[in-house]
């Protein structure tokens, strides 16, 4: 089925990459006269459906999981300050490892497929969401916390009614960055047979600029759409930010 074919393709392309390119037997050859084959695009646009859905699915799941974990960690670190440096370092280390390496390092443990993809993709979102959440907390003015405490709010009430609402802009900023980079990295999961839009850039279509460009365009649209969505959500959640100071 699809994954087996992809595996085979992966094996093939790796070794015979140069051979295929020079064969000239491609659906639409890119040269100086035309970069983009509109006809081919029109005819074959449906093949992008499944990869796009796979891509979306992976992104949504990974960002959701990453957010839940990073947010929980941030809440923990907020209460126990001594956790902050180690957590920051830990999430940072995960981010440093190039995604490809990460994917393949996990192979012995989780093998090919979606699970590995989700684990790695979630791990990458941890650092930025964690850092931004902590930054959001830092930006809450001390005087507001002092007043809240002095008025008789319990620590938990201060967290949920004061600190989190005021930290929302930073948190969502982190989500935006995390989502954008996850959408980008997800193109690589084709290498571990997890589908996604990377399939249109790798495999037998690899030599095909038009296919690649369409995939890139879809990705760009996805990034913009999510960014806009998150930005709008932020605006809705923080009505007090729009007002101009007197």
């Amino acid at each position, binding site marked *: 089925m699809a994954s087996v074919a992809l595996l085979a393709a*992966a*094996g093939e*392309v*790796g*070794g015979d*990459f*140069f051979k295929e*390119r020079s064969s000239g037997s491609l659906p639409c050859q*890119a040269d100086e006269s035309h*970069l983009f084959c509109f006809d081919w695009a029109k005819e074959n646009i449906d093949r992008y459906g499944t990869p796009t859905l796979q891509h979306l699915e992976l992104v949504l799941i990974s960002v959701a999981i990453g957010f839940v974990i990073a947010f929980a960690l941030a809440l923990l670190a907020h209460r126990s300050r001594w956790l902050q440096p180690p957590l920051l370092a830990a999430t940072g*280390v995960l*981010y*440093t*490892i*190039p*995604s*490809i*390496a*990460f*994917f*393949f*390092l996990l*192979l*012995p*443990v*989780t*093998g090919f497929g979606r699970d590995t993809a989700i684990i790695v993709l979630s791990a990458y979102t941890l650092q930025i969401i964690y850092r931004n959440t902590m930054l959001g907390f830092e930006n809450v003015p001390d005087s507001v916390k002092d007043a809240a405490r002095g008025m008789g709010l319990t620590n938990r009430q201060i967290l949920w009614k004061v600190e989190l609402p005021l930290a929302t802009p930073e948190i969502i900023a982190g989500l935006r*960055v995390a989502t*954008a*980079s996850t*959408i*980008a*990295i997800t*193109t*690589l999961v*084709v*290498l571990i047979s997890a589908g996604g*839009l*990377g399939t249109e*850039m*790798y495999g037998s279509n*690899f*030599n*095909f*600029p038009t296919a*690649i*460009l369409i*995939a*890139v365009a879809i*990705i*760009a649209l996805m*990034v913009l759409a999510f*960014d806009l969505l998150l930005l709008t959500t932020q605006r809705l959640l923080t009505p007090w930010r729009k007002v101009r100071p007197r």
Partner: protein
Amino acid sequence: MSAPLVLGSFSGAVEFIFAPQESNVTGGKEVGGFDKTMELLLGHIEVTVLALAIALLIGLPLGLYLGHKGKGELLAVGIGNAGRAVPELAVIALVATLIGIGMRNVAPALALLGIAPILVNAYVGVRQVDPATVDAARGMGMSELRIISRVELPLAIPTVMGGIRGAAIVIVATATIAPLAGVETLGDFILNRNVYGENGLLAGALLVALLAMTIEGSLALLQRRLTSDGLKVKTA
């Protein structure tokens, strides 16, 4: 997967790095080993350093200048945001199919990926320098160039280095799939499984991870060295 198996796989990988092995995929030919590993490692480092150098050459002065002038905020932020969302695979693929293969074509493409974080962070870093400090420097008679190099840059080091580190990460990561465009890097082990086998695969992943962490660690140390003590002191 059980622990012993996992460990077993990794030990196989480590062996692969150091000694040539028989690979059952290519029918008995010996693959891997220290020499090959070194060759690919050096290739990886070479393209990374080259790309980073180009990115620095272009991104750093531009970012510092724009930040100093205070112009082009929209552009800088836009580039930064866009840069994060660029799929590395697409870049390599497009380079390979449209422009050509080989170091000459790949290095600039990687550099392009690295310019975004360097430029954005240089811009933001300079913008965040206290305007009063710059004002004082100007009032003392420092030339604009001096201000940038002696005042703004040192004060912006943490942010700027953050950008450089980000660029390094992206470039090292993308260099891993550079073999698809004809540049021999450690990614070769990963992408050509049929040649190098399971051990090769893991070895490649391991090496890339280690390389990335080493580079990141060195840059972090460099950052600490470059950050003036005055900035490191915590305010009372």
